[in-house]
Structure formats: C-alpha cells, structure tokens
C-alpha cells in the first residue's frame, strides 16, 4: 500500500501544489465579496487564513515523521508546503492589516498585544526561510547551515500555536489541540537536535 502510494506520489510534480495553492485564498475572498461568509466577512477570512496557515505548518512538520514512521515519502513536496505556508501567513497578515485593523495603531498592537507580538515574530522568522527556499540558497549557504537555518520552523510552529492559544476568550479546546499536535510532531524530532547523536540518515 505504502509502496503504491509512494510510486503514485513520484508521478506528481511539486508544482501541482504551487498551482493549487492560490485557489482556497481566492475562493474565500470570493465568498466574502459576495456576502456568503455571514455578517462579519473580514474576521472569517482572517481567522480562516490563520487556521490554514497552521494546517500548512503542521503538514510541513509531518513530512519527516510520516517518512520515518509510515514510510510515506513526501519529501519533494516539503519546500512547496513551506513556501505556500509563507504566502498564507502573508495573506493572513495583510487581511488583518488592511481589512481588520485598517492600519490603525499597528505598531502599538504589535508591541502591546502579546498574541500579535507572537504572531508577528513567527512571520518575521518565516521571511528568511521563504527567501532561502531555493536551490541557489541551499548551495550558497551549504547544506548544514541551510538545515540549521530551516530548523527555525520549530520555534515558528510553537509561536503559531501560542498565537492561537493567546487570542481566544476563556478556556477553549481547539487551540489546545493544535498546540498538542504541534508539540507531538516536534517531539518526534528530539533525537535529531544538533547536540544529539545523528544515528538516523533521514534528518530535517
């Protein structure tokens, strides 16, 4: 089964993901523009894009454990997942900036509101990853440096989970479940930390 899945996946080009990625964003904006997202469409879009970003981060983090524990090889899609995550985060951020807060008190919000501070930090950390998600950067930086740099996705994922936890009112399960999934995926990597022994060939 896994072998069939892997051989099927081999025939799918990563560009398929890039090509498909804009459609959910366009679709939700279309629904918002045509009044199909209820009475507060800006908030719905903002929250949905944030949630999708979190899904994408989880998808990216799942690639390595899927390969190690299930034998499913999605490695060639990981760069696309990462780059798409960045653009979803950007769309989430722009929706917040333009449609929600409308450029009012933006700096005060970033400094004073913890969940915004945390979310913004995650986005900023994501920028170097997006910029170096190409073969030229990989060669230029060297594999080891590039790998170390891209481990920034771990704190980014934690910040993303924290962002969600901090913004809800009262005790709610949903952000806690996301945080647990992210922590679980990170836990599968503990023996891959730089100071641990590198006995397994599959890193990243």
């Amino acid at each position, binding site marked *: 089964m896994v072998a069939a899945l892997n051989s099927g996946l081999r025939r799918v080009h990563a560009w398929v993901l890039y090509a498909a990625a804009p459609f959910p964003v366009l679709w939700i904006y279309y629904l918002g523009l045509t009044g199909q997202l209820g009475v507060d*469409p800006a908030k719905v879009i903002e929250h949905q894009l944030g949630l999708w970003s979190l899904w994408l981060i989880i998808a990216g983090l799942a690639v390595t454990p899927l390969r190690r524990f299930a034998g499913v090889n999605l490695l060639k899609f990981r760069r696309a997942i990462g780059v798409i995550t960045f653009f979803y985060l950007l769309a989430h951020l722009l929706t917040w900036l333009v449609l929600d807060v*409308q450029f009012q008190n933006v700096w005060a919000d970033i400094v004073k509101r913890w969940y915004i501070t945390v979310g913004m930090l995650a986005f900023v950390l994501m920028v170097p990853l997006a910029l170096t998600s190409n073969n030229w950067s990989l060669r230029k930086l060297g594999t080891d440096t590039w790998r170390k740099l891209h481990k920034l996705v771990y704190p980014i994922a934690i910040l993303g989970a924290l962002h969600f936890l901090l913004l809800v009112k*009262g*005790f709610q399960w949903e952000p806690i479940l996301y945080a647990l999934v992210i922590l679980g995926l990170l836990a599968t990597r503990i023996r891959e930390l730089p100071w641990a022994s590198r006995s397994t060939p599959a890193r990243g």
Partner: protein
Amino acid sequence: MAFRWKNTLTSDDVTPYAAYLNRRQLMAGAAAGAIAGAMPMASRAQDALEPNTWEEITSYNNYYEFGTGKDDPARNAHRLTIDPWTVRIDGLVDKPGDYSFADILSQMTVEERIYRFRCVEAWSMVIPWNGFELADLLDWVGVQSSARYVAFETAMRPEEMPGLASPVLDWPYVEGLRLDEAMHPLTMMATGIYGRDIPKQNGAPMRLVVPWKYGFKSIKSIVRISLVEEEPPASWNVTNPREYGFYSNVNPNVDHPRWSQATERRIGGGLFAKRQPTLMFNGYEEDVASLYDGMDLSEFI
C-alpha cells in the same frame, strides 16, 4: 415607569436629514444628541444609527452556552425550552418568589428602544429592542433599602445547551449591576427585537440590555434576579479580571489588554467596512456619566 428615556432630538435638529430619516432612525438619533451638540451633524453619524437587519442581529451571536462560534447559537439555541419560563427573584426584595415570565410581562409596559450594542471584541450593531425598564420590574417586587447590587443568572441546562460541556466559563453565567445602574432609565429587559419575540440565540425569553456597557454584561435568558448587599460575581470578570472588569463600561480610552477599544467594526458593512470611532459610554455619556462621578475609569474598568 415606562417611557422615561426620551429622544432629545426633534425633527428640527436634523432638518436636512429629516426628510429621509424614518421614525426608527430618529429614535436611535437620541444617542447622537451629544455629538450633535459638539460638532456639526455628520451624515455618517446618522448612517451609523441605522439598525442592523434581523438577519445580522440573529445570526451573529456570542452565547457560549450554545458554542463559542458566532453562528453556533443560531444553530443550537432552538433546543432551549422557553415555555414555561420561571424567574426567581430573591434576596433583599419585599415580594420574593418564582415568577412566571407571563406574569412578569403582564405587569410591564413594553416599548421599543433602539440602542447601540458594542461587544468587548470591538464589533458593534444597532438593535431595535422591545422590552421594559428593569426599574419597573424592581419597583414591582420592591427593593429593600439595604440592597446595593443586582445579581443575574442565566439558565443552565446541559441537556439543552451543548456549550455547557466545555469549561470555557464557570457555569452558570452570572452578571451583576450596581443598583443605580440597574435602576437607570436606559437599563432594560429585552423581550423582543423588531417587534417580534426575541429569538433564543439572542437570549429568549428575557435578557438584560445595558447599552453603555460591553455586550457581555447584558446577560441572556435570565432565570434568577437577586438583590444583594455586596458586589456579585460576574462570569467574565471571575475568569479574567484583568481583561473584563465588573463595570465594563464602553470606554475608547481604556484598551482591552489584547486589543484596542478605540474603534469598532460595524457589523453589516461588508468586507471593506471602515472602522468607526468608539464613543465614550457607547454614545450614552450624557445619560450615564454622572453614575461614575469621582471614579477613575481606568481603574474601575
């Protein structure tokens, strides 16, 4: 005494606009009286007071007993049994007892009040409520002189309210007002919207409406009203006192720790609705500011 709160605007005050203001907007304009005195009447201020649609008011609700999503109450609240409905009125009152909603209603004069409604989450609506003044109810049961606060409690029925399964708040939902706030002519018990019975997701059969406070103070589906001596607990205040004060008066100058309260998003403006400035006491400053004379409103949040 019903009809204590009157529109301070007359058609003369809004002459250029009177032609296309219907009675409804005119009544809502009362709250804009303060603005009218201070600055030239802006058409935007009047536009802002056009009531939200029935659809908007009844599909976008915070009623965590039915779920934390804005559309959960509209989807789940049909399970709530509101007939029969009994309200226990107790504590420092002359005529304590279990009153049926029908009995209460038979004693009260229902009128229409168009109020701004400002949620602590920085969105707002304008809602044409039907209901009676809380003061009338309190007068009817006789408030004793030692009473200083009024405590309210929402129904707690796990079999009808799926949200109760989640420990978002310490159920049942409770709220409180100082007695002078409760007796204020603006404070009402809403039993309808747009002349129809109030929908379950909006707090049927009877809910509090305190228009100068953040929406969560306006407790829904009330089953108990107690006159007490000490400040009663209020659910959000108990959960997070730093973010939700007992008073929770709408105040654009005091931010919620996690977001600014200076502006608000008017529901119903579509995807590109422009944020509007939030008014002190939600536009009812002239009516209620004196209740808080001498209080530091950045301390008594």
